[in-house]
Protein backbone atom coordinates (compact mmCIF):
# COMPACT_ATOMS: atom_id res chain seq x y z
CA UNK A 1 0.00 0.00 0.00
CA UNK A 2 2.77 2.37 0.92
CA UNK A 3 4.74 2.02 -2.29
CA UNK A 4 1.54 2.63 -4.18
CA UNK A 5 0.92 5.82 -2.20
CA UNK A 6 4.46 6.92 -3.02
CA UNK A 7 3.99 6.33 -6.71
CA UNK A 8 0.74 8.25 -6.70
CA UNK A 9 2.16 11.28 -4.95
CA UNK A 10 5.01 11.45 -7.39
CA UNK A 11 2.31 11.77 -10.02
CA UNK A 12 0.47 14.32 -7.94
CA UNK A 13 -2.34 11.96 -7.07
CA UNK A 14 -3.46 10.39 -3.84
CA UNK A 15 -5.00 7.11 -2.76
CA UNK A 16 -8.31 8.70 -1.87
CA UNK A 17 -8.33 10.91 -4.93
CA UNK A 18 -7.60 14.15 -3.05
CA UNK A 19 -5.56 17.00 -4.47
CA UNK A 20 -2.10 17.42 -2.95
CA UNK A 21 -3.12 20.38 -0.83
CA UNK A 22 -6.55 19.11 0.09
CA UNK A 23 -7.49 18.16 3.61
CA UNK A 24 -9.79 15.24 4.31
CA UNK A 25 -13.23 15.96 5.69
CA UNK A 26 -13.12 17.45 9.14
CA UNK A 27 -15.72 17.04 11.84
CA UNK A 28 -15.44 18.86 15.15
CA UNK A 29 -17.70 18.28 18.15
CA UNK A 30 -17.30 20.44 21.20
CA UNK A 31 -18.16 19.68 24.82
CA UNK A 32 -18.43 15.96 24.46
CA UNK A 33 -17.04 15.09 27.87
CA UNK A 34 -19.29 16.08 30.75
CA UNK A 35 -16.74 15.92 33.53
CA UNK A 36 -14.15 17.94 31.71
CA UNK A 37 -14.04 21.71 31.94
CA UNK A 38 -13.58 21.74 28.21
CA UNK A 39 -13.38 19.16 25.48
CA UNK A 40 -13.53 18.56 21.76
CA UNK A 41 -13.59 15.62 19.40
CA UNK A 42 -11.99 15.94 16.00
CA UNK A 43 -12.38 13.53 13.12
CA UNK A 44 -9.94 14.32 10.34
CA UNK A 45 -10.55 11.82 7.58
CA UNK A 46 -10.45 8.65 9.69
CA UNK A 47 -8.13 9.97 12.32
CA UNK A 48 -9.94 10.54 15.58
CA UNK A 49 -8.65 12.61 18.47
CA UNK A 50 -10.22 13.82 21.70
CA UNK A 51 -8.83 16.73 23.67
CA UNK A 52 -10.02 17.01 27.23
CA UNK A 53 -9.30 19.96 29.47
CA UNK A 54 -9.27 19.76 33.23
CA UNK A 55 -8.61 22.73 35.39
CA UNK A 56 -7.02 22.68 38.78
CA UNK A 57 -5.44 24.92 41.34
CA UNK A 58 -1.70 25.04 41.68
CA UNK A 59 1.33 27.02 42.70
CA UNK A 60 2.72 29.23 39.98
CA UNK A 61 6.24 28.75 38.67
CA UNK A 62 8.76 30.90 40.51
CA UNK A 63 9.64 32.95 37.45
CA UNK A 64 6.00 33.62 36.53
CA UNK A 65 4.24 34.32 39.81
CA UNK A 66 1.31 36.09 38.21
CA UNK A 67 0.48 33.62 35.50
CA UNK A 68 -1.57 30.47 35.42
CA UNK A 69 -0.11 27.12 34.44
CA UNK A 70 -0.49 25.35 31.13
CA UNK A 71 0.35 21.70 30.71
CA UNK A 72 -0.16 19.59 27.61
CA UNK A 73 0.08 15.82 27.50
CA UNK A 74 -0.65 13.36 24.74
CA UNK A 75 -1.48 9.70 25.02
CA UNK A 76 -0.96 7.42 22.05
CA UNK A 77 -3.29 4.79 23.43
CA UNK A 78 -2.75 1.24 22.17
CA UNK A 79 -6.37 1.00 21.12
CA UNK A 80 -5.72 3.58 18.46
CA UNK A 81 -3.11 1.66 16.53
CA UNK A 82 -1.31 -1.67 16.51
CA UNK A 83 1.91 0.35 16.58
CA UNK A 84 1.17 2.09 19.87
CA UNK A 85 2.43 0.36 22.98
CA UNK A 86 1.14 0.64 26.53
CA UNK A 87 3.20 2.55 28.98
CA UNK A 88 4.40 6.09 29.49
CA UNK A 89 4.40 8.41 26.47
CA UNK A 90 7.12 7.59 23.97
CA UNK A 91 9.12 10.16 22.04
CA UNK A 92 6.42 10.70 19.42
CA UNK A 93 3.69 11.35 21.97
CA UNK A 94 5.96 13.67 23.90
CA UNK A 95 6.96 15.53 20.78
CA UNK A 96 3.38 15.98 19.66
CA UNK A 97 2.34 17.30 23.06
CA UNK A 98 5.20 19.73 23.17
CA UNK A 99 4.51 21.05 19.68
CA UNK A 100 0.84 21.59 20.50
CA UNK A 101 1.92 23.24 23.75
CA UNK A 102 4.24 25.64 21.95
CA UNK A 103 1.56 26.59 19.46
CA UNK A 104 -0.75 27.63 22.28
CA UNK A 105 1.82 29.04 24.66
CA UNK A 106 3.92 31.03 22.22
CA UNK A 107 0.89 32.59 20.60
CA UNK A 108 -0.24 33.72 24.04
CA UNK A 109 -3.67 32.44 23.15
CA UNK A 110 -4.71 31.99 26.75
CA UNK A 111 -4.61 35.12 28.88
CA UNK A 112 -2.57 33.50 31.60
CA UNK A 113 -2.55 36.61 33.82
CA UNK A 114 -6.29 36.25 34.27
CA UNK A 115 -5.82 32.85 35.87
CA UNK A 116 -4.29 34.16 39.07
CA UNK A 117 -6.10 33.54 42.36
CA UNK A 118 -3.47 34.84 44.75
CA UNK A 119 -0.35 36.26 43.07
CA UNK A 120 2.74 34.20 43.79
CA UNK A 121 0.72 31.59 45.68
CA UNK A 122 -2.30 30.22 43.94
CA UNK A 123 -3.16 30.10 40.28
CA UNK A 124 -5.41 28.12 38.00
CA UNK A 125 -3.85 25.32 35.98
CA UNK A 126 -5.06 24.29 32.57
CA UNK A 127 -4.33 20.64 31.79
CA UNK A 128 -4.84 19.68 28.18
CA UNK A 129 -4.84 15.93 27.58
CA UNK A 130 -4.82 14.78 24.01
CA UNK A 131 -6.12 11.30 23.47
CA UNK A 132 -5.51 9.61 20.15
CA UNK A 133 -8.43 7.32 19.43
CA UNK A 134 -7.64 6.25 15.89
CA UNK A 135 -4.38 6.86 14.08
CA UNK A 136 -5.06 7.26 10.40
CA UNK A 137 -2.47 9.90 9.78
CA UNK A 138 -1.80 13.56 10.54
CA UNK A 139 -2.18 13.27 14.30
CA UNK A 140 -0.55 16.62 14.96
CA UNK A 141 -2.88 18.80 12.96
CA UNK A 142 -5.89 16.94 14.35
CA UNK A 143 -4.61 17.20 17.90
CA UNK A 144 -3.89 20.91 17.61
CA UNK A 145 -7.39 21.49 16.25
CA UNK A 146 -8.90 19.46 19.07
CA UNK A 147 -6.89 21.30 21.70
CA UNK A 148 -7.87 24.68 20.32
CA UNK A 149 -11.55 23.79 19.99
CA UNK A 150 -11.56 22.45 23.52
CA UNK A 151 -9.90 25.58 24.85
CA UNK A 152 -12.43 27.84 23.18
CA UNK A 153 -15.18 26.02 25.03
CA UNK A 154 -13.57 25.66 28.41
CA UNK A 155 -15.42 26.97 31.43
CA UNK A 156 -13.62 28.11 34.53
CA UNK A 157 -14.74 26.16 37.59
CA UNK A 158 -16.12 28.02 40.59
CA UNK A 159 -13.90 28.24 43.63
CA UNK A 160 -15.05 28.10 47.19
CA UNK A 161 -13.99 30.50 49.94
CA UNK A 162 -10.74 28.61 50.49
CA UNK A 163 -9.88 28.66 46.82
CA UNK A 164 -10.80 25.04 46.22
CA UNK A 165 -12.60 23.96 43.13
CA UNK A 166 -16.31 23.20 43.34
CA UNK A 167 -16.76 20.60 40.64
CA UNK A 168 -19.83 21.01 38.51
CA UNK A 169 -20.16 24.73 38.99
CA UNK A 170 -18.62 27.26 36.68
CA UNK A 171 -18.12 30.95 36.28
CA UNK A 172 -17.15 32.28 32.93
CA UNK A 173 -15.11 30.89 30.10
CA UNK A 174 -11.37 30.49 29.80
CA UNK A 175 -10.05 33.70 28.26
CA UNK A 176 -8.75 32.58 24.87
CA UNK A 177 -7.88 35.43 22.57
CA UNK A 178 -6.06 33.87 19.62
CA UNK A 179 -6.65 30.94 17.35
CA UNK A 180 -3.35 29.44 16.23
CA UNK A 181 -3.80 26.75 13.59
CA UNK A 182 -1.18 24.11 12.90
CA UNK A 183 -0.64 22.82 9.39
CA UNK A 184 1.89 20.10 8.64
CA UNK A 185 3.37 20.39 5.17
CA UNK A 186 4.76 17.11 3.85
CA UNK A 187 7.35 16.49 1.22
CA UNK A 188 8.14 13.61 -1.09
CA UNK A 189 10.87 14.41 -3.58
CA UNK A 190 9.86 17.79 -4.92
CA UNK A 191 6.17 17.33 -4.22
CA UNK A 192 4.52 19.08 -1.32
CA UNK A 193 1.28 17.81 0.14
CA UNK A 194 -0.96 18.28 3.15
CA UNK A 195 -2.85 16.11 5.59
CA UNK A 196 -1.03 12.82 5.17
CA UNK A 197 -3.12 9.69 5.50
CA UNK A 198 -1.64 6.75 7.39
CA UNK A 199 0.01 5.17 4.34
CA UNK A 200 1.44 8.51 3.33
CA UNK A 201 3.06 9.13 6.73
CA UNK A 202 5.49 6.26 6.32
CA UNK A 203 6.67 7.24 2.86
CA UNK A 204 7.20 10.95 3.31
CA UNK A 205 10.71 12.37 3.24
CA UNK A 206 10.14 15.24 5.62
CA UNK A 207 7.42 17.25 7.29
CA UNK A 208 7.37 20.85 8.45
CA UNK A 209 4.61 21.67 10.92
CA UNK A 210 3.82 25.36 11.22
CA UNK A 211 1.49 27.09 13.67
CA UNK A 212 0.01 30.28 12.22
CA UNK A 213 -2.00 32.95 13.95
CA UNK A 214 -4.91 34.87 12.56
CA UNK A 215 -2.67 37.88 11.85
CA UNK A 216 -0.41 35.58 9.81
CA UNK A 217 2.37 35.57 12.38
CA UNK A 218 4.13 32.26 12.85
CA UNK A 219 4.30 31.05 16.43
CA UNK A 220 5.75 27.57 16.23
CA UNK A 221 7.55 25.36 13.74
CA UNK A 222 8.92 21.86 13.88
CA UNK A 223 10.60 19.83 11.22
CA UNK A 224 10.00 16.10 11.36
CA UNK A 225 10.92 13.19 9.16
CA UNK A 226 14.18 11.46 8.47
CA UNK A 227 15.31 13.38 5.39
CA UNK A 228 16.43 16.96 5.04
CA UNK A 229 14.52 19.78 3.37
CA UNK A 230 16.23 21.85 0.69
CA UNK A 231 16.65 25.38 1.99
CA UNK A 232 14.91 26.96 -0.97
CA UNK A 233 11.74 24.93 -0.47
CA UNK A 234 11.15 26.24 3.05
CA UNK A 235 9.46 29.44 1.98
CA UNK A 236 6.99 27.61 -0.21
CA UNK A 237 6.10 25.30 2.67
CA UNK A 238 5.51 28.26 4.96
CA UNK A 239 3.29 29.92 2.34
CA UNK A 240 1.27 26.75 1.93
CA UNK A 241 0.74 26.43 5.67
CA UNK A 242 -0.28 30.07 6.01
CA UNK A 243 -2.79 29.78 3.21
CA UNK A 244 -4.35 26.59 4.56
CA UNK A 245 -4.51 27.79 8.14
CA UNK A 246 -7.00 30.49 7.14
CA UNK A 247 -9.34 27.84 5.73
CA UNK A 248 -9.07 25.58 8.76
CA UNK A 249 -9.58 28.39 11.23
CA UNK A 250 -13.11 28.88 9.91
CA UNK A 251 -14.04 25.46 11.28
CA UNK A 252 -13.18 26.34 14.84
CA UNK A 253 -15.74 28.10 16.99
Amino acid sequence: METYALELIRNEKRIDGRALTQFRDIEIKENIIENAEGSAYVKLGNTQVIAGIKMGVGTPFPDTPDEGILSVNAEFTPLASPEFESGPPGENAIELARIVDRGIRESKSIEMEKLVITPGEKVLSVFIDIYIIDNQGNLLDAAALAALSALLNTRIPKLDAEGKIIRGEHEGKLPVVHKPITVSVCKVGDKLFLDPAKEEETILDAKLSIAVMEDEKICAMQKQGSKGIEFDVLEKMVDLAMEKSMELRKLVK
Partner: protein
Amino acid sequence: MGKKSDTELIIGGIRIDKRLPDQTREIKMKVGNILSANGSAEVSFGDTTALASVHGPRQLFPRHLQESQTGILRVRYNMAPFSVDERKSPGPDRRSTELSKVIRLALEPAVFLDDYPKVTVDGFVEIIQADGSTRVTGINALSLALATAGIPMKDLVAACSVGKINGTLVVDLNGEEDNNSESDVAVAMIPNRNLVTLLQMDGMLTKEELMHLLDLAKKTCKKIYEMQREALLEKYKGEE
Protein backbone atom coordinates in the same frame (compact mmCIF):
# COMPACT_ATOMS: atom_id res chain seq x y z
CA MET B 1 11.69 29.13 27.77
CA GLY B 2 10.08 31.15 30.54
CA LYS B 3 8.61 34.53 30.39
CA LYS B 4 9.35 37.03 27.69
CA SER B 5 9.99 40.10 29.76
CA ASP B 6 10.89 43.67 29.00
CA THR B 7 14.52 42.99 29.89
CA GLU B 8 16.82 45.22 27.94
CA LEU B 9 18.90 42.72 26.02
CA ILE B 10 20.13 45.07 23.34
CA ILE B 11 21.27 48.58 24.05
CA GLY B 12 22.34 50.74 21.16
CA GLY B 13 22.63 47.73 18.88
CA ILE B 14 25.02 45.93 21.24
CA ARG B 15 24.01 42.85 23.20
CA ILE B 16 24.58 42.53 26.91
CA ASP B 17 27.66 40.39 26.37
CA LYS B 18 29.05 43.04 24.02
CA ARG B 19 28.27 41.12 20.85
CA LEU B 20 26.80 42.49 17.66
CA PRO B 21 23.52 40.96 16.54
CA ASP B 22 25.13 38.75 13.90
CA GLN B 23 28.04 37.64 16.06
CA THR B 24 28.38 34.20 17.59
CA ARG B 25 29.94 33.63 20.97
CA GLU B 26 33.45 32.21 21.17
CA ILE B 27 33.31 28.74 19.65
CA LYS B 28 35.70 25.99 20.68
CA MET B 29 35.83 22.52 19.19
CA LYS B 30 37.97 19.49 19.84
CA VAL B 31 37.70 15.86 18.83
CA GLY B 32 38.79 12.50 20.15
CA ASN B 33 38.62 13.55 23.77
CA ILE B 34 36.95 10.37 25.05
CA LEU B 35 39.12 7.30 24.54
CA SER B 36 36.51 4.79 25.56
CA ALA B 37 34.25 5.83 22.74
CA ASN B 38 34.59 4.98 19.07
CA GLY B 39 34.29 8.68 18.35
CA SER B 40 33.98 11.79 20.48
CA ALA B 41 34.02 15.56 20.48
CA GLU B 42 33.57 18.56 22.72
CA VAL B 43 32.04 21.78 21.44
CA SER B 44 31.33 24.98 23.29
CA PHE B 45 29.58 28.17 22.31
CA GLY B 46 30.47 30.66 25.01
CA ASP B 47 29.44 29.02 28.28
CA THR B 48 27.39 26.27 26.71
CA THR B 49 29.44 23.08 26.52
CA ALA B 50 28.38 19.80 24.97
CA LEU B 51 30.24 16.50 25.07
CA ALA B 52 29.36 13.94 22.47
CA SER B 53 30.42 10.36 22.02
CA VAL B 54 29.55 7.54 19.67
CA HIS B 55 29.57 3.84 20.52
CA GLY B 56 29.18 1.68 17.50
CA PRO B 57 28.32 0.38 15.11
CA ARG B 58 27.48 -2.33 17.57
CA GLN B 59 25.06 -5.17 18.06
CA LEU B 60 21.54 -4.20 18.79
CA PHE B 61 19.51 -5.83 21.54
CA PRO B 62 16.70 -6.74 21.86
CA ARG B 63 16.69 -8.53 18.58
CA HIS B 64 13.25 -7.37 17.57
CA LEU B 65 14.54 -3.81 17.25
CA GLN B 66 16.96 -4.84 14.57
CA GLU B 67 16.15 -3.42 11.18
CA SER B 68 17.19 -6.16 8.85
CA GLN B 69 18.08 -3.92 5.94
CA THR B 70 19.76 -0.94 7.55
CA GLY B 71 21.37 0.02 10.79
CA ILE B 72 19.72 2.44 13.15
CA LEU B 73 20.93 5.60 14.79
CA ARG B 74 19.96 6.17 18.40
CA VAL B 75 20.61 9.41 20.21
CA ARG B 76 20.35 10.32 23.84
CA TYR B 77 20.46 13.99 24.79
CA ASN B 78 20.89 14.66 28.47
CA MET B 79 21.70 17.61 30.71
CA ALA B 80 23.95 17.14 33.71
CA PRO B 81 22.36 18.16 37.01
CA PHE B 82 25.03 20.80 37.55
CA SER B 83 24.75 22.27 34.08
CA VAL B 84 22.03 24.77 34.90
CA ASP B 85 21.16 27.42 37.50
CA GLU B 86 18.66 25.39 39.50
CA ARG B 87 19.94 21.82 39.84
CA LYS B 88 18.26 19.64 37.31
CA SER B 89 17.06 16.27 38.53
CA PRO B 90 19.10 13.55 36.82
CA GLY B 91 17.46 11.40 34.20
CA PRO B 92 15.36 11.96 31.14
CA ASP B 93 12.48 14.37 31.16
CA ARG B 94 10.04 15.28 28.44
CA ARG B 95 12.23 17.99 26.99
CA SER B 96 15.27 15.76 26.71
CA THR B 97 13.15 13.02 25.17
CA GLU B 98 11.98 15.42 22.48
CA LEU B 99 15.45 16.82 21.93
CA SER B 100 16.90 13.32 21.66
CA LYS B 101 14.50 12.72 18.84
CA VAL B 102 15.11 15.96 16.97
CA ILE B 103 18.86 15.62 17.26
CA ARG B 104 18.68 12.11 15.87
CA LEU B 105 16.60 13.38 12.95
CA ALA B 106 19.05 16.22 12.43
CA LEU B 107 21.87 13.73 11.89
CA GLU B 108 20.09 10.82 10.23
CA PRO B 109 20.06 12.35 6.75
CA ALA B 110 23.83 12.64 6.94
CA VAL B 111 24.62 9.07 7.91
CA PHE B 112 24.86 6.03 5.60
CA LEU B 113 23.01 3.48 7.69
CA ASP B 114 22.35 0.97 4.97
CA ASP B 115 25.98 -0.07 5.15
CA TYR B 116 25.23 -1.67 8.51
CA PRO B 117 22.17 -3.91 8.56
CA LYS B 118 20.97 -5.12 11.96
CA VAL B 119 23.23 -2.93 14.06
CA THR B 120 23.00 0.33 15.95
CA VAL B 121 25.11 3.45 16.11
CA ASP B 122 24.55 5.02 19.52
CA GLY B 123 25.18 8.72 19.93
CA PHE B 124 25.27 10.44 23.31
CA VAL B 125 25.12 14.14 23.98
CA GLU B 126 25.74 15.41 27.49
CA ILE B 127 25.37 19.08 28.22
CA ILE B 128 27.77 19.83 31.01
CA GLN B 129 27.26 23.58 30.95
CA ALA B 130 24.09 25.21 29.71
CA ASP B 131 23.81 28.82 28.65
CA GLY B 132 21.33 28.68 25.82
CA SER B 133 21.37 26.89 22.46
CA THR B 134 22.22 23.51 23.92
CA ARG B 135 20.65 21.35 21.25
CA VAL B 136 22.54 22.94 18.39
CA THR B 137 25.81 22.79 20.32
CA GLY B 138 25.06 19.10 20.88
CA ILE B 139 24.44 18.52 17.18
CA ASN B 140 27.73 20.15 16.24
CA ALA B 141 29.53 17.91 18.71
CA LEU B 142 27.75 14.71 17.73
CA SER B 143 28.41 15.38 14.06
CA LEU B 144 32.13 15.50 14.81
CA ALA B 145 31.93 12.42 17.02
CA LEU B 146 30.26 10.43 14.24
CA ALA B 147 33.01 11.42 11.82
CA THR B 148 35.81 10.48 14.20
CA ALA B 149 34.10 7.15 14.92
CA GLY B 150 34.45 6.26 11.27
CA ILE B 151 30.72 6.17 10.64
CA PRO B 152 30.17 6.70 6.91
CA MET B 153 28.59 10.11 6.35
CA LYS B 154 27.42 12.15 3.40
CA ASP B 155 28.81 15.26 5.04
CA LEU B 156 29.06 16.99 8.38
CA VAL B 157 26.02 18.66 9.94
CA ALA B 158 26.37 22.18 11.34
CA ALA B 159 23.81 23.82 13.61
CA CYS B 160 23.11 27.18 15.19
CA SER B 161 20.39 29.21 16.86
CA VAL B 162 18.94 32.47 15.64
CA GLY B 163 16.14 34.58 17.05
CA LYS B 164 14.59 37.90 17.84
CA ILE B 165 15.34 39.90 20.98
CA ASN B 166 13.96 43.35 21.65
CA GLY B 167 12.86 43.53 18.04
CA THR B 168 16.34 42.78 16.66
CA LEU B 169 17.23 39.63 14.73
CA VAL B 170 20.25 37.92 16.29
CA VAL B 171 22.50 34.90 15.98
CA ASP B 172 23.52 32.41 18.72
CA LEU B 173 21.31 33.13 21.68
CA ASN B 174 22.78 32.74 25.13
CA GLY B 175 20.68 31.61 28.10
CA GLU B 176 19.37 34.99 29.11
CA GLU B 177 18.53 35.91 25.54
CA ASP B 178 16.84 32.56 25.02
CA ASN B 179 14.63 33.00 28.07
CA ASN B 180 13.61 36.51 27.13
CA SER B 181 13.44 36.29 23.37
CA GLU B 182 10.48 37.16 21.22
CA SER B 183 11.40 34.14 19.20
CA ASP B 184 14.10 31.53 19.03
CA VAL B 185 14.86 29.24 16.14
CA ALA B 186 17.16 26.21 16.03
CA VAL B 187 18.55 25.24 12.63
CA ALA B 188 20.81 22.40 11.48
CA MET B 189 22.09 22.11 7.94
CA ILE B 190 24.33 20.22 5.59
CA PRO B 191 25.66 23.46 4.11
CA ASN B 192 27.17 22.07 0.90
CA ARG B 193 23.88 20.50 -0.07
CA ASN B 194 21.76 23.42 1.10
CA LEU B 195 19.81 20.88 3.11
CA VAL B 196 18.00 21.69 6.36
CA THR B 197 17.84 18.78 8.78
CA LEU B 198 16.56 20.51 11.91
CA LEU B 199 14.17 23.41 12.13
CA GLN B 200 12.36 24.36 15.29
CA MET B 201 10.90 27.70 16.08
CA ASP B 202 8.88 29.21 18.84
CA GLY B 203 7.83 32.74 19.69
CA MET B 204 6.25 35.07 17.20
CA LEU B 205 7.59 36.11 13.83
CA THR B 206 6.25 37.54 10.64
CA LYS B 207 7.08 35.53 7.57
CA GLU B 208 9.63 38.17 6.51
CA GLU B 209 11.41 37.97 9.83
CA LEU B 210 11.44 34.18 9.60
CA MET B 211 12.96 34.17 6.12
CA HIS B 212 15.57 36.70 7.20
CA LEU B 213 16.49 34.60 10.21
CA LEU B 214 16.79 31.51 8.04
CA ASP B 215 19.27 33.33 5.83
CA LEU B 216 21.28 34.36 8.88
CA ALA B 217 21.22 30.77 10.09
CA LYS B 218 22.42 29.50 6.74
CA LYS B 219 25.42 31.84 6.75
CA THR B 220 26.26 30.97 10.34
CA CYS B 221 25.98 27.24 9.74
CA LYS B 222 28.47 27.60 6.91
CA LYS B 223 30.95 29.25 9.25
CA ILE B 224 30.45 26.58 11.87
CA TYR B 225 30.93 23.88 9.24
CA GLU B 226 34.34 25.32 8.37
CA MET B 227 35.29 25.25 12.04
CA GLN B 228 34.23 21.62 12.30
CA ARG B 229 36.47 20.77 9.37
CA GLU B 230 39.35 22.60 11.00
CA ALA B 231 38.86 20.70 14.24
CA LEU B 232 39.00 17.35 12.42
CA LEU B 233 42.02 18.20 10.29
CA GLU B 234 43.88 19.66 13.24
CA LYS B 235 43.53 16.46 15.18
CA TYR B 236 45.33 14.47 12.54
CA LYS B 237 47.82 17.01 11.34
CA GLY B 238 48.78 18.52 14.62
CA GLU B 239 49.94 15.40 16.45
CA GLU B 240 53.41 15.79 17.86
